[in-house]
């Protein structure tokens, strides 16, 4: 028995290391100035899938929704051990909130076909909502286990996992197929040198077309090249909204009930500021002042 595991990943701006240059003069964030990275907890989800692949036999398909450049995280997943990759990309997906995103990804999962598990990172660092995983589960009518740390057992019909709860943990058993959201509880394996050599040539259709127009050398057409790539397992499948039969009214901006009314940059100010000397006298005066105004009892 071989299992099929889908891992949904996201390419995100590195919001945890925002530098001065990344803020525009009007106080908004300049996404272009931020490095695009593999969402950290999605790497944990991928690692969990690869551990299952090591333990049982499993085919790991990694998929993402994003702009054409998001193929980068798919290649990275192939470098680490994923078997194949799907890029869901279409201008019609733009402006999606979590409801529209989870709908699109659920359609993507259905097109990938039969699977035993879907793994997602708990949340992405650009929005921190943790909503897309549970919403994909609901769309596909799957049981969900959130905050998974470890899979204890996978069988043809069920899965047993340990997950974090507030102040402790639980061991849950669920029938498969099921969806997990995964927390930062494992150490994602690094990219494998041999796999890099092979999969750096893995491309999407758009990437192949772009390379043809910019550095045209050989005589073969994109179509021929696609076939060759596919035969070698080096084609990253690229699907549009139509390819996954997504209802246009439920994706992108149109399919998103939440609208952003206003964005403000965070300006932190304390009002009064007093510099205190790092001396016995300075500190003593400060403590005296805090006792006087009843801050300290």
């Amino acid at each position, binding site marked *: 028995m071989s299992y099929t595991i889908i891992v949904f990943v996201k390419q995100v701006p590195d*919001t*945890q290391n*925002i530098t001065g240059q990344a803020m525009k003069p009007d106080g*908004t*964030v300049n996404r272009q100035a931020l490095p695009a990275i593999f969402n950290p907890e999605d790497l944990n989800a991928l690692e969990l899938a690869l551990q299952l692949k090591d333990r049982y036999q499993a085919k790991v398909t990694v998929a993402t929704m994003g702009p054409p450049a998001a193929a980068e995280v798919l290649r990275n997943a192939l470098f680490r051990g994923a078997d194949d990759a799907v890029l869901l990309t279409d201008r019609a997906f733009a402006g999606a*909130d979590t*409801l529209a995103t*989870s709908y699109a990804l659920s359609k993507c999962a259905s097109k990938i076909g039969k699977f035993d598990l879907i793994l997602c990172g708990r949340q992405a660092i650009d*929005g*921190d*909502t*943790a*909503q897309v*995983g*549970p*919403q994909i*589960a*609901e769309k596909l009518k799957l*049981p*969900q*286990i*959130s905050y998974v740390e470890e899979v204890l057992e996978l069988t043809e019909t069920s899965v*047993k996992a340990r997950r*974090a*709860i*507030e*102040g*402790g*943990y*639980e*061991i*849950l*058993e*669920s*029938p498969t197929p099921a969806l997990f959201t995964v927390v930062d509880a494992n150490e994602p394996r690094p990219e494998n040198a041999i796999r890099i050599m092979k999969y750096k040539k893995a491309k999407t259709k758009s990437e192949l077309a772009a390379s043809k127009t910019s550095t045209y050398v050989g005589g073969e057409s994109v179509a021929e090249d696609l076939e060759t790539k596919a035969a070698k397992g080096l084609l990253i499948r690229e699907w549009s909204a139509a390819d996954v039969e997504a209802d246009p009214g439920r994706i992108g901006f149109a399919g998103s*009930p*939440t*609208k952003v*009314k206003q*964005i*403000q*940059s*965070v300006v*932190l*100010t*304390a*009002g*009064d500021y007093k*510099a*205190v*000397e*790092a001396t*016995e006298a300075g*500190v*003593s005066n*400060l*403590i005296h002042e805090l006792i006087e105004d009843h*801050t*300290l*009892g």
Partner: protein
Amino acid sequence: MSEQIGNVWVFIEQEGGKIADVSLELVSKGTELAAKLGVSVEAVLLGSNVGNCCDTLFQYGCKKVYLADDPRLEPFTVLPFAKVIMDLIKEYKPNILLFGATMKGRELAPRVASEKLAGLTADCTDLRIDDFDDKVNKKFYKNKLMQIRPAFGGNIIATIVNTWDDPQMVTVREGVMKMVEPDPSAKGEVVKVDVALTAEETVVKVIERMRQDKTVNLKGAQIIVAGGYGVGSAENFKLIRELAQVLGGEVGASRAAVDAGWIDHDHQVGQTGVTVRPKLYIACGISGSVQHCAGMSDSKKIIAINTDPAAPIFSVAHYGIVGDLNQVIPMMIKAYKAKA
């Protein structure tokens, strides 16, 4: 147009019959929103043998409690909870539904929102009622819930509006809404809910469960002494603990110190930890990332101790001490012991 709008609902989180603070914070906030809309605040309470929670909910402002009491609802699992709440939404059509942004709330709310095809905003830090003029779609919405949350790693604050059908759903961070004083004489109505679950919703079984109540009470602390990466080691946290103990406060920490393994996550203050607003917050060796400041900048008095005069923590501090915490903290202990 005088269409009757629904009430404001709060999902009540409880563990062993003890209501989570965040739920009472939301009942308090919900009361304010409901008053603005001319409706009432109501609680949705699920569990097994939890009827004794109802009086507390009335005291905090609930006019009605929808009580789903059933052994299959203990311990908490997502699918049956989502089903019961969904059935209630269909029957009573609330206008607003508030969840705590706890681990439970953050896995339950999206499941419900997805099925209802409702918008959901995560981790709100403020809520307001206001009109929304959607210029893009040329529509005007009266009395909508303004859902205010930090985004992009805490670097921006976004106001989100749900323009689709009700309920307008949000999860709200723990500790950011103020709890009202309970009114011991307040009464309300209990609506017993028939719990209709099918095999489909009870497929996930809890085989083992281990949990302990938190031993750290950061939210209730009047004084917090917090250490960051500048503390340098787990060993050095002794100094932070000592100052906290002398001043009668709790020990807090930045994410960097928690990630370094020097102190337990229960102590973490900030966007991925607890939001606090004590009388006094002493930040020791904390650089002051926006994520950390988001969780403590409402403290009444903030003292920052850092060797780096350019550390952002100084921009939220009321008192800044540029210096080595290993020297400054003993001075503070000595000065306090001498004065108090």
